C-alpha cells in the first residue's frame, strides 16, 4: 500500500508523466520516496522492536526523517513547480499539508516517547501493546501522506480507509470497556461512511469513462480536473453527495460526528493529537479536491454552486452544534474534540463559500488549528497525568502544581478561542471578512457561534488552571518543547505571516479557486 503500484503496461505512461518535470526529476522523486518510505520501513521496524526504550527514540527518528523528506519535497515544489508522475501529484496545495502532517507527526512523537513510557510503567498497557502503538503510529503517518500525495481518487480512498484501520486498534489500546466501545463505534461509523465514499468514487469513475479514453487514467485527479467540464453533471451531482457524506464522516461533520468525541477521549493522548491535527485535515483535503471536480462539471448547469452550498450547510451546522455541545462536556479530551468539530465546521463552511479570500483564510485556519489543537492535546495529556483523571471536575489548580502545564493550557485555549495576537484570530478574521462580502447575515451566526464556543471553553478552563490544587498533587515529568514550538509558530503567524508562507498559501488558493488573493 505504501507505494501504490502502477497499473499494467503503464511504464511508458510513467515515463511520459515524468517528462515535463524530468529536469532534475529523479532527485525530486526521491524526496517524495523518502517521505513515504521512511514511515513504511520505520513502521515495520517498530513492530519488530521489542525494547520499549529504544522504540520511542526510533519512532522519533523516523518521524524526523519523514519531516526532513517533506521539507525537501516542499523546497523542490516551491522552486521548480508541481511534481507529477508515477501516480503521484504534489502541488502547492497538498505539499503544504504534507509538511504540516510531517511536522505535527514529529512533534507528537517527541511528546509520545515519555508519555507512553509513563503509561507503560504504570502498567496500563503491556510492552506488546506498545509495539502495536509505535507500528500503527507510523502506519497512520504513511496512510496520511499517501492520501495527500496520490493523484488517484481510488488510492486516496484506500489510504483514508487505511488510516481508520491503523488507528482503530490504538483507540482500544487501553482495553477498558469504554475504549473498546469507542473503537467499535469508530470502526463501524467510519467504515460505513467510507463505504459510501467508495460508491461515490465508483460513480465518478463511471462518469469519467465517457470522457477519458484510457480506463487506467479514469480515476486520475489531474486528468479528471482537465476534463471536468465534460463530466456528466447528473452523475457527478449524485456522486458528490455520497463522497461528501463519506469523507465528511471522517472530517467529523455533524451529524456524522458521533465517533469523534469517543475516539478522542478513550484513545491515548498522542493519538488524539494526531487525529485532531491531521486526520480531519486530510479528509477535508479530499472533500476540497472533489469539490473542484464537481464545480468544473456543474459550471454550465442551473446549480453551479451546489457543492459549495452543501459544504456551507454542513459546515455551519457542525460549527453551531459543536459550539453548543462544548458547554455540557465533563471530560477534558471530549471537550477539545468538540472544539475540533467546531473548527472543522468553520473550515468546511469557508471552502464552501469559495472565492480567494475565504479559501486563503480556510487554508491558514487548517494550519493554525492543527498546530494549536495538537499543542492543546499534548498539554492535556500532561494535565491528565497530573490529576490522574480526565474528569474536568477533578482537574484543579494546574498553574499552582505545575506552572508550565497550566500556562500552556491557558495560552493554548486562548489561542484556539480566536484571541489576538494568535494566528487563529487572523484566519477567523479573514473568514468573517469573506462572509461579510458574500453573505452578510451569516456573519451574525458565525460571530455568535464563536462567542458561544468561547464561553463553553472558558467556563471549564478557568477552574482547571486556577483554583486550588488538591492535596498531594505532584508535578509530572513533562516535555513542553512541542507545545512551545507549536504555540510559538501560531503566535508568529498571528503577528506577521512570513512572505514565503503567504506566497505559498496564495499559490494554493490560486490552484483551488483559479485566482490570486495577493
Amino acid at each position, binding site marked *: *500500500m505504501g507505494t*501504490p*503500484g502502477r*497499473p499494467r503496461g503503464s511504464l511508458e505512461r510513467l515515463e511520459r508523466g515524468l517528462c515535463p518535470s524530468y529536469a532534475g526529476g529523479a532527485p525530486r522523486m526521491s524526496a517524495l520516496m523518502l517521505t513515504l518510505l521512511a514511515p513504511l520501513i520505520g513502521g515495520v521496524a517498530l513492530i519488530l522492536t521489542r525494547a520499549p526504550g529504544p522504540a520511542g527514540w526510533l519512532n522519533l527518528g523516523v518521524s524526523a526523517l519523514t519531516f526532513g523528506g517533506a521539507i525537501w519535497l516542499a523546497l523542490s515544489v516551491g522552486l521548480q513547480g508541481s511534481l507529477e508522475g508515477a*501516480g503521484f501529484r504534489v502541488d502547492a496545495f497538498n505539499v503544504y499539508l504534507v509538511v504540516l502532517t510531517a511536522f505535527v507527526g514529529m512533534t507528537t512523537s517527541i511528546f509520545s516517547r515519555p508519555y507512553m513510557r509513563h503509561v507503560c510503567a504504570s502498567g496500563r498497557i503491556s510492552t506488546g501493546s506498545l509495539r502495536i502503538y509505535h507500528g500503527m503510529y507510523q502506519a497512520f503517518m504513511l496512510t496520511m501522506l499517501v492520501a495527500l500525495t496520490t493523484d*488517484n481518487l*481510488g*488510492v486516496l*480512498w*484506500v489510504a483514508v*480507509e*487505511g488510516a481508520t484501520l491503523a488507528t*482503530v*486498534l490504538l483507540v482500544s489500546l*487501553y*482495553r*477498558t*470497556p*469504554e475504549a*473498546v*466501545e*469507542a*473503537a*467499535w*463505534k469508530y*470502526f463501524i461509523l467510519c467504515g*460505513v461512511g467510507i*463505504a459510501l465514499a*467508495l*460508491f461515490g468514487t*465508483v*460513480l465518478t*469513475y*463511471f462518469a469519467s*469513462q465517457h470522457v477519458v479514453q484510457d*480506463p*487506467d487514467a*479514469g*480515476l486520475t485527479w489531474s486528468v479528471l480536473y482537465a476534463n471536468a467540464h465534460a463530466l*456528466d453533471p*447528473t452523475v457527478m*451531482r*449524485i456522486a458528490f453527495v455520497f463522497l461528501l457524506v463519506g469523507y465528511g464522516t471522517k472530517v467529523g461533520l455533524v451529524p456524522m460526528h458521533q465517533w469523534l468525541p469517543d475516539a478522542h*477521549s*478513550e484513545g*491515548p*493522548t498522542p493519538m488524539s493529537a494526531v487525529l485532531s491535527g491531521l486526520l480531519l485535515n486530510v479528509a477535508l483535503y479530499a472533500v476540497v479536491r472533489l469539490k473542484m471536480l464537481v464545480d468544473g462539471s456543474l459550471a454550465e448547469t442551473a446549480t453551479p454552486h451546489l457543492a459549495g452550498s452543501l459544504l456551507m450547510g454542513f459546515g455551519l451546522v457542525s460549527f453551531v452544534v459543536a459550539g453548543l*455541545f462544548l458547554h*455540557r462536556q*465533563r*471530560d477534558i*479530551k471530549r471537550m477539545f474534540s468538540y472544539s475540533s468539530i467546531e473548527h472543522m465546521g468553520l473550515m468546511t463552511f469557508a471552502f464552501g463559500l469559495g472565492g480567494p479570500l475565504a479559501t486563503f483564510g480556510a487554508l491558514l485556519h487548517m494550519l493554525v488549528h492543527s498546530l494549536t489543537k495538537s499543542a492543546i492535546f499534548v498539554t492535556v*495529556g500532561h494535565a*491528565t*497525568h497530573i490529576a*490522574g*483523571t*480526565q*474528569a*474536568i471536575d477533578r482537574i484543579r489548580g494546574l498553574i499552582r502544581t505545575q506552572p508550565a502545564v497550566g500556562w500552556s493550557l491557558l495560552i493554548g485555549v486562548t489561542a484556539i478561542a480566536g484571541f489576538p495576537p494568535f494566528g487563529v484570530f487572523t484566519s477567523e478574521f479573514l473568514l468573517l471578512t469573506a462572509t461579510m462580502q458574500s453573505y452578510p447575515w451569516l456573519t451574525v451566526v458565525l460571530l455568535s457561534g464563536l462567542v458561544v464556543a468561547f464561553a463553553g471553553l472558558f467556563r471549564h478552563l478557568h477552574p482547571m488552571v486556577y483554583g486550588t490544587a488538591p492535596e498531594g498533587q505532584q508535578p509530572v515529568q513533562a516535555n513542553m518543547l512541542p507545545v512551545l514550538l507549536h504555540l510559538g509558530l501560531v503566535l508568529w503567524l498571528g503577528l506577521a505571516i512570513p512572505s514565503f508562507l503567504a506566497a505559498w498559501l496564495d499559490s494554493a488558493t490560486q490552484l483551488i479557486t483559479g485566482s490570486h488573493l495577493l
Partner: protein
Amino acid sequence: MSLTAMTLLQQFVLLLAALALFLSFVLLAQPRLVAAIHVFAWQGGLVAAVTLTVAMAGDASHLYFSALLTFGLKALLIPWMLHRLTRRLGLARHTETLTRPALVIMAAVVLVIFSYWVVVPMVAQGLAFTRNIIAVSLAVVLIGLLMMVFRQQAVAQVLGFMSMENGLFLAAVSATAGMPLVVELGVAFDVLVAMVLFGVFFFQIRESIDSLDVDRLNRLTETNEVEGAS
C-alpha cells in the same frame, strides 16, 4: 427501462445482480448466524460470477483476475474466517431474536425504491442497463447499512458491512467494467485487514462486556460521569 432492449448478456448480468439483491434481503432477516454466513458467501459468489460474465463479454482480461480475487476473498476466505471465529466464540448455534422483522423488510423495500429514485435523473445517459445495475448495487449497499443498524450482534453487523462491500464491487464491475487494478487490489487489501481487525475486536468486546451484543456497549454518552485516567 424496457428490459427487452438489452442484450442477452446484460439481462444475464442483471439477473445475477438481482439475485444478489435478493440474498441481501435473506441476510437481513436470517436469525441464525451460521446460515447468514452461508448466505453471505453465496452473495460473494454471485458478485464473482457477475465479474466473470463481464470479463468474458467485454474481453477485459484483467477482470478475470478480479473475478478470481472476489471469489477467493468474498466467497471463500472471509466466510471461512467468520465461520472459524463463530466456532471459537462458541456462537455456532447462536440465534438472534429479531425485533419486528416484517417492519425491517418493509424498510428494505423502501430502500430499493429509493435507490431507483436516486438514479432516475440519469436519463441523459440513456442506458437502461447501467441505470438498473447502479440502482441494484446501491440497494445492496443501503440494505447492508440497514442491517448494521438493525442487528445487535457484532458478527451480524460485520456481515452487513461486508455485504455493503459486495454492493460496491457489483457497482464497480458492472457499471464501469472494473476499477483500475491498483485500486482494486488496495480495496481488497483494506477489506482483508478490516476482517482481521473485526476478529480482534470480537474478542476484545467479549472480554469487556461478556457478550457480543453490541447494544450493551452503551457506556459512552454525552452525560455520563467520567472515570479513570488516561
